[in-house]
């Protein structure tokens, strides 16, 4: 086993697949949060030596101390990641390095330094990598004059599939993205959403185990977004690796098993959203919204607890925001208040345990710059 840190070690002990099929693994895995760039680099250095690259595991997407520069401009720097099956979302503002990371793991770019292996295959091995990976890029260009059908079918033929199988695979992929009727039309005449779907069809047509999707829900209507999200979940449940970038944080929240937060080319945090949030508790105590008829009284009773660091009444006088360092203890105390029966509590809702809050605390914005 290569030096991938404690999380990888635990996963390897659990078995070669890193989680059983149908169960997205690492939903409750640990999170790594880098408070600053040097901390991130230190975490990377601790992960292993370059000599370990030759023994990359066959059930992971592994970045080993990867940097990529465009001339003197930084793309990503000293990235160390080990991605398991399931849905991983890359989150970060524009220009943070998300697309560079995706291009690197699909072999479209070569790292300036470091090594990347996808399920044990180095990204320099274009032939084997191409069979493992399907990539739906953000680039909205197509071969001139291509129809939806000729685009998907032609790429399958380039991949070496015999005519009969290429036709069958193209038909199945086009059907899966619901473009059967438009398949004979030129892609130039497609709407943005249709172009997005035909790119997705090309990406899934050869049955890759790893699907990399750069803003895949852009341009889709709500129904199509829901269908695509369901497709991604189904593929993830089958043991596929789905790596997705999205600027719509609430979608990331509902879709992803884990998140990689990137900022200025550095990985600032990675892991399950809940664990990532928990690792920020010390600096940013969890907030809970409580809607009730006597918020001032609730605040008075809760303030007696040492874990409660803030209680702020809502302007409408019908609720309060409480911040606590001990969520379990807080809920127990709140339960006692409810059971006492002298206060009507309508709702108890976590205020900042989602990816947007994590993002805000790590990057310093609420995702507006995404």
């Amino acid at each position, binding site marked *: 086993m290569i030096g991938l840190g404690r999380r990888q070690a635990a996963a390897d002990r659990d078995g070669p697949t890193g989680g059983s099929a149908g169960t997205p693994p690492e939903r409750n895995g640990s999170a790594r949060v880098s408070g600053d760039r040097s901390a991130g680099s230190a975490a990377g250095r601790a992960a292993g030596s370059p000599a370990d690259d030759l023994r990359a595991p066959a059930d992971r997407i592994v970045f080993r101390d990867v940097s990529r520069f465009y001339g003197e401009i930084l793309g990503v720097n000293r990235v160390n990641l080990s991605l398991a099956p399931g849905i991983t979302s890359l989150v970060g503002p524009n220009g943070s390095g998300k697309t560079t990371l995706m291009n690197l793991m699909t072999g479209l770019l070569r790292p300036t330094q470091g090594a990347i292996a996808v399920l044990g295959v180095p990204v320099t091995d274009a032939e084997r990598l191409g069979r493992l990976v399907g990539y739906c890029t953000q680039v909205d260009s197509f071969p*001139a004059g291509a129809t939806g059908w000729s685009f998907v079918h032609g790429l399958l033929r380039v991949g*070496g599939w015999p005519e009969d199988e290429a036709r069958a695979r193209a038909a199945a992929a086009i059907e899966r993205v619901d473009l059967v009727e438009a398949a004979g039309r030129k892609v130039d005449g497609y709407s943005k959403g249709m172009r997005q779907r035909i790119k997705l069809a090309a990406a899934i047509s050869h049955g890759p185990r790893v699907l990399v999707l750069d803003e895949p829900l852009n341009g889709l209507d709500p129904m199509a977004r829901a269908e695509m999200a369901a497709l991604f979940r189904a593929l993830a449940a089958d043991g596929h690796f789905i790596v997705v970038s999205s600027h719509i944080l609430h979608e990331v929240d509902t879709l992803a098993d884990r998140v990689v937060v990137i900022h200025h080319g550095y990985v600032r945090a990675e892991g399950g959203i809940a664990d990532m949030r928990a690792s920020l508790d010390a600096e940013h105590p969890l907030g809970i919204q409580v809607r009730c008829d006597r918020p001032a009284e609730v605040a008075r009773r809760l303030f007696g607890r040492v874990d409660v660091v803030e209680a702020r009444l809502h302007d409408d006088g019908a609720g309060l925001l409480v911040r606590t360092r001990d969520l379990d203890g807080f809920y127990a105390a709140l339960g006692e208040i409810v059971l006492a029966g002298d206060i009507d509590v309508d709702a108890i809702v976590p205020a900042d345990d989602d990816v947007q809050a994590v993002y805000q605390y790590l990057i310093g914005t609420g995702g507006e710059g995404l």
Partner: protein
Amino acid sequence: MTAVTAGAAGEGRPWGLWRRQVGGIVRLELRKVLLSRMALIGWGLAVLPVLLMVARVLVVVLGFDVLAEGERAIGDTAYAEVYQTLMLRLCVFFGCLAIFVNLVRGEVYARTLHYYLLAPVRREVLVFGKYVGGLAGAALVFGGATLATRLVMLGGGPGWGETAVRTVMAGPWLGHTLAYVGVTLAACAGYGAVFLVVGLLRVNPIIPAVVVFAWEAVNPFLPAALQPMSVVHALLALCPVPVSLGPIAILGQPPSGPVAALELALVTALLVALAMRQARGLEALYGED
């Protein structure tokens, strides 16, 4: 369903898979070389010498008395001059420049290179397939144009219809035609390989193209030892009718046909191999990334 696998241990090289992949790439490239907007450049250059020959024939057929009696028929030497200067040095050269430089660079301009790079194809096979596709397209366009000029050549003289039949049946026309078409195909292969390499360089292709053009143009005036280091040197040696290169040309000993063909084949193979090697480091960079 058929599994697409590439040479597991002990299976040897997966020639069948590579052949299918090259076939798939050639199909896409042929469509681009023959039917895309960029293809107009190749078609335009190919049509140019045909139109020139047709114009000359029309002058005679329509009775314009601008040519002397002895100049009316397009003789072997006159054709050879037109072929070597216009067809070979200009039309095929610039046509191949347009076709082969764009095999890879054109995909970058169109922002479609990533589709190829994401396909499960070795980069070497990808570039080889593109070369074969470009070659097939160029051969169709310029081989067809060469054939057309040879057919047009048959007209022009007095009683040109009967003369034409006699020429085809008895004279060297048929052999020369096959030779000229062969030289055109060899030119497409040789210049194609040169411009395939140029298209993979990370520099503006105009600069190396101008250098190659200048080198090819001054070839007859170079020292005899340097003359073989060009495509046109071998091509001229393969042409069935020699053309005077003027008094200041330095006449080296021209290679025999088979030697010239072998030289050209070797240079072409080396250049294609170099391009395949260059392709290993190919990246999808579209400028603003």
